[in-house]
């Protein structure tokens, strides 16, 4: 089984890389890109029976720094 964890900087936390991407899109002529946030996707291959609660614990302890980041877990 598989879990997909998406980690993003929290709203309000400066994301200079996302801002640089937004700027680049604008200078390429893509109008109307009002904001870009860049995060990461972590795919976990898990033994059958691994619970979502265990993946949440992985996020809390290592995969995300909840001081600055939020995360979303999608099982399967």
């Amino acid at each position, binding site marked *: 089984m598989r879990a997909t964890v998406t980690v993003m900087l929290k709203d309000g936390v*400066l994301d*200079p*890389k996302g801002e*640089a991407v937004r700027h680049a899109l604008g200078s390429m002529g893509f109008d109307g890109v009002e904001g870009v946030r860049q995060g990461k996707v972590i795919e976990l291959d898990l033994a059958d029976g691994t619970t979502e609660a265990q993946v949440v614990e992985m996020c809390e302890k290592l995969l995300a720094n909840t001081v600055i980041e939020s995360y979303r877990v999608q099982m399967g």
Partner: protein
Amino acid sequence: MKAAVIVFPGSNCDRDLAVAFRAAGFETQMVWHKETDLPAGLDLVGVPGGFSYGDYLRCGAIAAQSPVAAALRAFADRGGHVIGICNGFQILTETRILPGALLQNAGIKYICRQVGLRVETADSAFTGGYAAGQEITLPIAHHEGNYTADPETLARLRGEDRIAFRYLDTPNGAADDIAGILSENRRVLGMMPHPERAADPALGGSDGAALFASLAGLLAPA
């Protein structure tokens, strides 16, 4: 006086820090990250700069889960003195020994240069050798030095006089110009600038030497 410097795969300021500790009079040993205990009788532990575990995932995140990290946390919890510099500061926030986090520099670029700092408090074993308000120059070398914390934490750091150093001209976007902070018991210091790289005139600066001399003086057995 006994000190240890923790060495992670990717640490690169570990020997510099040991040189500064020894010059100040600390008997210093290196401790590999796989150790589950720190040597007995330590007065001081240094968490050095570098790129522990290649900065994979987040700077300091994997180091914060290494075997030695639990021993480091226990040492800090029982009142031991700890200094984390640069990547060491990042590791101390990732272990939650110190509050807040270090984001990528606001200008995205890695910055390696001398910066002006103001010593904001002389009330710690680390900063007792400076005068509050004294301006010093130390080098920085980092890509993730943009200190951030929630407004309540920042207010608390200010209210409890726990901001050890501020940048005179903030190079990285750090909240409230913060370059270094103290723990609640004032025995853990995390800072982005490198005092160990300015602890001897031969290195191009010696403004960091007072930090190590102060530690040696204040931690020395009476």
